């Protein structure tokens, strides 16, 4: 086949950052990160509080100028083309910014107007979106009266009013109870299946595992690892983790030599010891044969939490 006939179908990435930095005075919030996000991906920033996730999202969302490095969003430069870029973004900020003086439906309507969309089109769209986030029966309620989860869903609906090419979600489920969280995840999952490009931040490893095709782990303004959840776990953690809890700190301390004898990598936390191994069953049998007394003992698959712990020596939630 002649070379001229092979189509190169690689669409340009929606986000490209090289050496991206954000400083507030003397403090460095984002310390030179490289990121690229392709169309159709669900991409995540996973990291603890203060890692620089929101600062990064705000630079991508063109509401915070970068302090250094390069950034291109949808092929444009946020420093000069902010309004054009924002016209094609859907933003769910970390803190709710719903309009408390308006009803649920009016929130979507006026938001559409900010994008200069025609009123009739927004009305149809608003009904669709409220249906999508299961808030149709609350259409005429004041926003004050909604639960945290409903507010989050409304914020998501609002962010979709302009049919964005890129949806930015900063901690979409932080502060929600498990049930409300699952409802949000379910909607995001549907969006993903419809082909939307999602970029989200989270400090919940289960959220990152559930939703992200690919993610970076951020800590102190830097990216410490990148890959799919599977890849990250394979690369930075073992297949299995044995979690051991002891009656007291001194018992835990006394058990350490025997645990080290197993030969697996060990993480010692305040309330438990983690054993990274590929042979969990066998190790546990050996420890029990050895007469090790534990309060609880659990063999589980390694998670992103373990990846973070391995890379930074800390847990995500602390």
């Amino acid at each position, binding site marked *: 086949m002649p070379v001229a006939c092979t189509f190169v179908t690689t669409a340009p990435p929606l986000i490209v950052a090289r050496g991206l930095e954000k400083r507030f005075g003397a403090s460095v919030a984002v310390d030179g990160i490289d990121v690229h996000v392709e169309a159709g991906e669900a991409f995540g920033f996973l990291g603890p509080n203060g890692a620089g996730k929101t600062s990064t999202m705000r630079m991508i969302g063109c509401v915070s100028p970068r302090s250094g490095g390069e950034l291109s969003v949808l092929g444009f430069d946020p420093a000069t083309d902010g309004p054009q870029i924002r*016209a094609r973004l859907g933003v769910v900020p970390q803190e709710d910014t719903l*309009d408390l003086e308006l009803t649920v439906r009016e929130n979507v309507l*006026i938001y559409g107007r900010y994008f200069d969309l025609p009123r009739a089109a927004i009305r149809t769209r608003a009904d669709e979106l409220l249906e999508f986030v299961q808030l149709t029966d609350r259409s005429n309620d004041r926003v004050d009266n909604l639960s945290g989860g409903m507010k989050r869903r409304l914020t998501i609906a609002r962010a979709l009013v302009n049919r964005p090419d890129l949806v930015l979600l900063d901690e979409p489920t932080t502060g929600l109870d498990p049930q409300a969280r699952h409802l949000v995840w379910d909607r995001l999952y549907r969006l993903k299946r419809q082909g939307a490009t999602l970029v989200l931040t989270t400090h919940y490893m289960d959220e990152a595992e559930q939703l992200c095709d690919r993610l970076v782990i951020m800590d102190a303004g830097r990216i410490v690892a990148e890959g799919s959840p599977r890849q990250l776990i394979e690369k930075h953690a073992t297949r299995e983790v044995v979690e051991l809890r002891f009656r007291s700190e001194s018992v835990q301390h006394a058990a350490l030599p025997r645990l080290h004898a197993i030969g697996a990598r060990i993480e010692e936390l305040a309330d438990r010891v983690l054993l990274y191994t590929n042979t969990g069953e066998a190790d546990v049998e050996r420890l029990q044969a050895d007469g090790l007394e534990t309060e609880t003992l659990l063999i589980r698959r390694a998670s992103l939490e373990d990846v973070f712990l391995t890379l930074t020596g800390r847990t995500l939630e602390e």
Partner: protein
Amino acid sequence: MSFLFVHVVERNFMAYRRMWLVFLSGFVEPVLFLLSIGVGVGKLVGSVTVPGVGAIPYDMFVAPALLATSAMNGSVFDTTFNFFFKYKYAKSFDAMLATPLGTTDVALGEMGWALLRGTIYAAAFLATMLVFGLVESWWAILAIPASMLIGFAFAGAGMAATTWMRSFVDFDYVNIVLVPMFLFSATFFPLSRYPEALQWVVRVTPLYQGVAIERSLVLGDLHWTLLLNVAYLVVMGLVGVRVAGKRLTKLLTP
């Protein structure tokens, strides 16, 4: 610069549809002042001599000043208290800035709303004055755009000042500025009644410019110095919007 700021005006329109009682109160206040001071106190005072016009009834003297004052109050209220609430607590502006709207659009939109509301009040108050027989000249029709100008000047200044406010406690300063200005801008007695030295202080206050313009128009006593009053207010408004826009950019998009 774009025309997107009209959507910010539209947002306020949407919100106030349910708050029409609040909306109405802005009209009632100056009318109450007119009835109590203009008509009531006026009975005791009798007439006032205005240079170039002669002796006029007291209510006719006070009414144009109340028109100017209500333009000031309405616009200051919208751009300080209401603006601060949206900026600091409701985060309405953060929501707007995630869309193609920029900080200039937000500042212009909020100001546009303050002006629109002020214009409606001015027109209603002027109509009331007409009913009371307090309008002497066809020039009075220009009192409405003059109210918009006063509103513009104070909206700019109010919005700029608000960007430095830390909490609602700081708004006491707004009253510390507004109340003396309301009482001593040749509102309730003519400039000639002030001590010589104070006359110059009064002449440079912003509300005095508004009072001078409104009074001239309503009484049909036009003078070239009005251009100075107009220029003063135009500059005040422009500087205010510019400062407010810059400050908002710094505060909302750090």
